[in-house]
């Protein structure tokens, strides 16, 4: 009863903040509602007993991704009115497509059935949940059975990094950087010149 109440609280808040993400007028508010949505989703994960996913969601999505969003939104000059232009024009078509898709998915999920031995197949990779924390279970799977996928993801992120640098890094001419060695090399002889200034003459 109590956990059901908590579930409905998290679920309702997640949906409500999701709606606010796309309907808020101010993009900064959108990002803040997105963070609220992440927190509620993390709560739902906790209710399911997936504490590791809950923590990762907060650490990675709230701590890194959403903050990055916030920076981007604050730095870019986003004109909300311009973005909203044409919203009403596309609304009917979009709504029709969305409703058709929704009905189709409902029909599909209404007749949903599982394969006969689905339980056994789902549980096969990991040991039973009672014996082990799910952080440890995930770690064991990730570095043994899924080692190939883990390494491949690493390479994938490297490609993303190479791509980002290739497309955005520009070497600018005339940028003055501090080179400490060169500062220390300077001597009075090389940088100070002493002249006698005749009175009234200037240099």
């Amino acid at each position, binding site marked *: 009863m109590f956990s059901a109440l908590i579930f409905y609280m998290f679920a309702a808040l997640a949906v409500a903040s999701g709606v606010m993400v796309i309907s808020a007028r101010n993009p900064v508010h959108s990002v803040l509602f997105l963070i609220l949505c992440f927190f509620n989703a993390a709560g739902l994960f906790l209710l399911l007993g997936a504490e590791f996913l809950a923590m990762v969601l907060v650490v990675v999505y709230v701590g890194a991704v959403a903050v990055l969003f916030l920076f981007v939104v604050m730095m870019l000059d986003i004109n909300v009115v311009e973005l909203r232009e044409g919203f009403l024009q596309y609304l009917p078509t979009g709504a029709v497509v969305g409703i058709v898709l929704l009905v189709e998915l409902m*029909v*599909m*999920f209404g*007749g*949903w*059935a*599982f*394969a*006969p*031995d*689905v*339980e*056994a*197949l*789902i549980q*096969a990779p990991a040991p039973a949940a009672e014996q082990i924390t799910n952080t440890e279970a995930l770690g064991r799977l990730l570095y*043994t*059975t*899924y*080692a*190939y*996928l883990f390494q*491949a*993801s690493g*390479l*994938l992120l*490297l*490609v*993303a990094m*190479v*791509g980002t640098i*290739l*497309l955005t890094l520009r070497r600018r001419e005339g940028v003055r950087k501090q080179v400490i060695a060169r500062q220390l090399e300077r001597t009075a002889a090389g940088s100070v010149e002493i002249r006698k200034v005749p009175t009234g003459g200037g240099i």
Partner: protein
Amino acid sequence: MILDLVPLMPELLVAAAALALLMLGVFRKADTSREATVLAGLAMGGALAVLVGVEGARQTAFGGMFILDGFAGFSKALILVASAMTVSMSLDYLKRENIARFEYPVLVLFATLGMMMMVSANDFLSLYLGLEMQSLSLYVLAAYHRDSARATEAGLKYFVLGALASGMLLYGASLIYGFAGTTSFDSLAKVLGGSGHPNLGVVAGLVFVMAGLAFKVSAVPFHMWTPDVYEGAPTPVTAFFAVAPKIAALSLLTRVLIGPFGELAHQWQQVVVFISLASMAVGSFAAIGQTNIKRLMAYSSIGHVGFALVGLAAGSDLGVQGVLIYVAIYLFMNVGAFGVILAMRQKGRAVEGIADLAGLAKTNPSMAFVMAVLMFSMAGIPPLAGFWGKFYVFMAAVKADLWTLAIVGMLTSVVSAFYYLRIVKVMYFDDAVEALDHPTNPPIRLVMAVSALVVLLFTFLPGPLLIGAKAAAQSLFAAG
């Protein structure tokens, strides 16, 4: 579990080469694009040699996530040959356009690695990671010429649509996992094989997966990005796009449909028949009005994908053999044609109009001859190789009683002959306004010569390819 890395040796070599070249490029102050390109080509050749060494019976690694069988070996060999040929043609062009950087061969190596992982995928997770590795490298390569507005637009368009396609693929895979409780192709084949009437959710998932993969092979109705990306990307990148990724994605589509979903053949067959018909039609009719040769090649590649899918629609080992023969011949025709396109320069400036080829027969007879041979072959005129490619897929379709496909295929190939022959006409019968420069770059000339020879001589020596494709196709069916 014993980690048996032997089947992964070619991939490991390519990955190690990519990382080493990246380090070389970062730590050496001088421009290393030439060394990196040569070494990347050598690494691909080395991976091919290793592949020949380790290939053999069906082997799996990492708990069945990675598979090396005859089918994967054949596709990987084609991918490596295609990548090595296109990367060797790129250097001179990029240097002249002043955009040569060491990251180019590194990204091509990463894309090749992704493609090899794709064709060896035996699980939806490894499929997705291979596909993303390939796609991500390709997005960057499309926008490689970052100071050109067209290239940037091409990269962005490709990225946005590609991300959408990946999303569809993942949604489909999650529906299938929701039904079966497994993502492994071997277990899926068992679960779906015994279920009798297929579940609606599985069919929907299958359709989503096919939509995602159809985008990657640029089959109609998921082809809209192709002409813009091909036109906007730098020409060496377009040459790479047109060959290796298509081979990889077609092989992947074939493995997914024949392997885990082999029992649902009557479900996916209608979808494949439709996209095949639509691709052949769009590929032949939309290409007629093109004046830019890269756009023309884009529509031509859409048409070729349609023809290759005819073999897949048959769903038999004969059909898969036809697909493999088709893509192998397509590889040489396309690489050669792009060699000619890369060599199209007027006074040191790259040109891409079909009209710029006018009078090539007088100014450069050998290049005109190569292009003419390739165009005749693409049109499917016997006795050139392109005819045999079409012959084997149509044979498979006829044997599977898919008469509509075979007849529409023949009609559209007649239509497409119009624009291929128009290029020949422009080269041989129109007068040159301004002559094209003579290509002096040895790799491009070598690639042109090799592809023309393969296309010309295939009729006399078809044995190795036919036997290889047959063994590869049978290895796919023997496992199931």
